């Protein structure tokens, strides 16, 4: 078989270290944020993004040239990068910010990613992000990056088919009330795509666990360290957090013994069957 003229894809996956999803969080006494002395792990949506990048390579074999993971965060974020490398990414970039620095806002992250993409000598074809971080629940970074780059975007993707020969990606998205299918063009240096994964495990398989040999291998993979200053971006938060508080507590109202008692309670609240 003659080698095709298909382009080799370079994929970037931005990831975030966040409080583990299973942790029951507590607001700190100063009410400036939450108690961060708890287990952290990779944002679950980003795990799906890394997994999908690795699967795209499994499907397309040699057409995927590189998978690079990127994080912007304190020194401890290095562990999150190693996890992604153990899952199958080739190399990593750590844009390090001081432990005490405020968490950058999506706009700051998007600007940092843009600066990073522009530094890649071979260009970037696809950026895959999680649809939101489970700490700030903002869900903006990917769209902001697509806007800054002027690239195609597909948010809340549940199925991705990349065709490097046709230079397109067909992406199915979850929208309110159903699904939508898009075709995104990839023409190097003009337009590429940015998509996010939503967490639909029927379409996206569970992210793989890194095996011990892969964890050992990941230790040898290159991690480039950069600072925000070196990238020439300003990531100072533009919004001011006044306070973080506990939500109003909801207390259960106790249990009933049977369906009749349940119905009585419903009736009390004015809930009856629908008049046919």
């Amino acid at each position, binding site marked *: 078989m003659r080698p095709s003229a298909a382009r080799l894809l370079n994929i970037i996956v931005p990831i975030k270290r966040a409080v583990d999803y299973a942790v029951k969080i507590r607001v700190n006494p100063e009410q400036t944020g939450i108690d961060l002395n708890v287990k952290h792990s990779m944002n679950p949506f980003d795990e799906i993004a890394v997994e999908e990048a690795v699967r795209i390579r499994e499907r397309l074999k040699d057409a995927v040239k590189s998978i690079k993971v990127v994080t912007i965060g304190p020194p401890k974020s290095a562990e999150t990068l190693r996890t992604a490398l153990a899952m199958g990414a080739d190399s990593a970039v750590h844009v390090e910010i001081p432990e005490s620095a405020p968490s950058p806002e999506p706009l700051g992250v998007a600007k940092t990613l843009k600066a990073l993409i522009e530094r890649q000598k071979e260009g970037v074809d696809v950026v895959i992000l999680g649809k939101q971080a489970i700490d700030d629940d903002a869900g903006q970074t990917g769209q902001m990056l697509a806007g800054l780059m002027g690239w195609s*975007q597909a948010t809340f993707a549940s199925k991705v088919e990349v065709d490097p020969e046709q230079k397109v990606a067909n992406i199915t998205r*979850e929208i309110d009330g159903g699904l939508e299918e898009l075709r995104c063009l990839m023409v190097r240096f003009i337009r590429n795509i940015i998509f996010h994964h939503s967490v639909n495990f029927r379409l996206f398989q569970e992210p793989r666990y890194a095996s011990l040999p892969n964890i050992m291998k990941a230790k040898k993979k290159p991690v480039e360290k950069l600072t925000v200053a070196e990238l020439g971006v300003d990531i100072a938060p533009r919004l*001011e957090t006044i306070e973080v508080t506990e939500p109003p507590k909801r207390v259960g109202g106790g249990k009933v013994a049977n369906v009749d008692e349940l119905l009585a309670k419903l009736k009390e609240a004015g809930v009856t069957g629908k008049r046919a």
Partner: protein
Amino acid sequence: MLKARISLLNRVPVRSYATAASPHALVFLEHRQGNLDSASLSALTAASQLGGQVTGLVVGSPEEVPSVVEKAKRLNGLTLLLHCASPQYTTLLPETVSPLLEKLLSQSSPFTHVVSAHSSSAKSILPRVAAKLDVPAVSDITSLEHDAASGSTTFTRPIYAGNAISTVRASSSIPIKFFTVRSTAFAAAGAGDAAESEVKALDSVEVSDAPTEHINTSLTKSDRPDLGVASRVVSGGRALKNAETFQSTLYPLADALGAAVGASRAAVDAGYADNSLQVGQTGKVVAPELYMALGISGAIQHLAGMKDSKLIVAVNKDPDAPIFQVADVGLVADLFEVVPELVEKLKQ
């Protein structure tokens, strides 16, 4: 004497009211099949709370826009209604809609705020536009307060799946404040007897080389109320065994109550229910009058999507299921016995 001294020391130059632009919100009004989305009507209510002018924007295909405009111009709280129709807006792709919004919000724009529902469409479009204008955006707000003197707006929004509430301020240094609104936190604006708002057509900004093409949309068909706005929701979890049992068990109860059907992520992941029915941090956030959780244990992520419901009823075999800690009415029993009995007795 001392007091007077202190007050002199504390005196700071106060900005006069004239310096901060009075708020003028642009509300992105979404619609489907000629009808306004009720979540957009909640966004309009939030925009009205800024205390200034409110302009609505309707974007869509030439076939749809006229009938939507007809309905939207009667909405309470709107001072002006802008509309823009073009075949390229038949499906709102962020790549084709953004240029229109950017043009509308450019240099000489009167707008101080851009508001929309926290819907999948607006979530895709608004941040893209905000980034192009180099301003941050605030997602999924549950309350807001605008200070006209300083031109700053303070919002509250849930973070960590609703397990903490963050209060953030966008100061006057952010010339246009973008935010999306959690629809369950604001009543829907009504169509009132107020004077019809002024209506103005905008020229579309045609994008000839959009990098994205829409292929098709497939909506889940259902004659039940829409999950996002239903006043009653019957929701099922992993205990429902499979897709068939999920339907045969829950649908009769939903119909007896006139309720929408929801599902936990476990039920969706296992393939019992369509993804569009998922309630929780990664699905829909609902706040109906009645939320019935059947065979749902009540993980943090699920509670994030329903804990503001007025009355929570839980049926679960496990007496220690966390759902019982928030349920107003709990019943420890086998849902396969409870649900048919409920349906039977509700029909009487």
